[in-house]
């Protein structure tokens, strides 16, 4: 497989002991001073290296805010802190790759130019960037569209390109904010399978935000459920399903159904 995305593949359970990939301690966030909007309240969790964790929560509960804090784009309120791979987060750390809710492509750049951007900004050698891009494009099935502009791509292609924009820096920790949010169920399933395949190859630490209960169960080792605003972690459910997972087989398994019911109750969705 490709050097850009591959570290030695492993098949064992991904929960790796040792230092945490992401550690969030007592993170709170209030926007606009003391009388402002309290978005997050004492969020506290830890994700071991190599684990795939999803966050489920109602709209407006502070999921994107939490992701921005973990990414180092905005600071938490005093008293809270974030550690990435054992190091305290101050500003944006190079180990992190983020895909935001709204896609990040520059309209005036082609797919390839967009994917190169982050690497060029970091001053990587052009030959190295070429190599990485040539590895990434086939994995994302975007080879034929490397010279297309964002407005010439489908929604699913744009979201795959957004993954490529992040992967080119080969980050150790991936933060994904509803990367497949605006897609139909079928395309979404396909991209989920691809995302899982990528993760199985790379074994990076992944934190994924989603609204979809089945998506969270299908992808994750653990699912964190957040409360209404001000958001905090209500529950932490370990998803004990065998890997590798196949979308149809996994969703037919009785355990899968039980997880759906359990998470649905926690989120206040009646079944």
């Amino acid at each position, binding site marked *: 497989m490709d050097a850009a995305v591959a570290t030695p593949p492993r098949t064992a359970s991904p929960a790796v002991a040792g230092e945490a990939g992401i550690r969030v301690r007592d993170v709170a966030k209030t926007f606009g001073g003391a009388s402002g909007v309290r978005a997050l309240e004492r969020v506290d969790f830890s994700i071991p290296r190599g684990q795939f964790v999803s966050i489920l929560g109602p709209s407006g509960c502070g999921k994107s805010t939490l992701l*921005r804090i973990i*990414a180092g*784009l905005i600071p938490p309120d005093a008293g809270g802190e974030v550690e990435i791979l054992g190091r305290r987060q101050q500003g*944006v750390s*190079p180990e*992190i790759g*983020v895909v*935001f*809710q*709204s896609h*990040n492509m*520059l*309209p*005036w750049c082609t797919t390839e130019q967009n994917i190169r*951007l*982050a690497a060029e*900004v*970091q001053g990587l050698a052009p030959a190295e960037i070429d190599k990485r891009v040539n590895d990434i494009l086939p994995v994302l099935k975007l080879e034929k569209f490397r010279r297309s*502009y964002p*407005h010439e791509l489908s929604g699913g292609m744009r979201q795959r390109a957004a993954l490529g*924009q992040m992967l080119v*820096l080969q980050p150790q920790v991936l933060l994904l904010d509803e990367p497949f949010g605006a897609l139909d169920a079928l395309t979404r399933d396909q991209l989920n399978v691809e995302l899982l395949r990528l993760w199985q190859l790379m074994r990076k630490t992944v934190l994924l935000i989603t609204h979809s209960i089945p998506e969270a169960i299908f992808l994750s080792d653990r699912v964190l459920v957040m409360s209404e605003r001000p958001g905090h972690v209500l529950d932490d459910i370990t998803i004990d399903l065998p890997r590798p997972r196949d979308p149809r087989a996994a969703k037919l398994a009785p355990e899968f159904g039980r997880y759906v019911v359990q998470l649905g109750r926690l989120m206040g969705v009646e079944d």
Partner: protein
Amino acid sequence: MTAVDRNARWRQFVDPAILFVILAILWEKAVDVFHIKPYLLPPLSKVVTAFWDTRATLLAESWVTVQEVVAGFFLAVVGGIVLGFVLHAIPPVRRALYPVIVIFQGLPKIALAPLMIVWFGYGITSKVLMAFLFAFFPVVISTMGGLASTPSHLIEHFKAIRATPWTTFRRLHVPAALPSILDGCRTAMPLAVIGAIVGEFVGAERGLGHLILEANANGRTDLLFAALVAVSIVAGILYFLVELAARRVWWRAL
């Protein structure tokens, strides 16, 4: 290209041409039928003759006006973009200077023409400055608008990939602002023409504006019309050049 496309393209030129011919015939006939005095409205044929007979003068005077317009426009675009960027990037400067700019923009620039002549004389400089004054503010405002409309999620993306302010400026802010800046330039070009002509009206020895005044004073209405035709040709060509540049910023249309 389909037959329909080709037809549409063809019609794009033919339709205005037909209208033009109809208006020309009406003009020629109306002067005849209603016995309009030639010093009020000469027949089209006399305007065409005057245009042809004085073609050397028209070309020479047009060239003077073109230089004034282009120099003033160029200064306005460069100065306007620089000032727009400075105002966007440095909030204290923006707070201090923005009200002044708004007041200046409200001022009728025509009223400044006599002052420009007094300060800079009858030569080309005062006209360049008039063209500049007319064209400058739209460029400043559109530059600021373009910069302010850079999508915030892209700004955040550049932060997330740890781009330096300079890289962010060059690879995000400039291309994001370009469509708006070029819209500002398209507004500015006809204004620069107006500025130069107004300057020539108030005090000049050369240029199309001067020629118009001179033709008027000598009762040569046919020459006056010929000069007006020259002005519109000059303005049309200059505008078309800006439009060509604007088309290169294709993501404007997205």
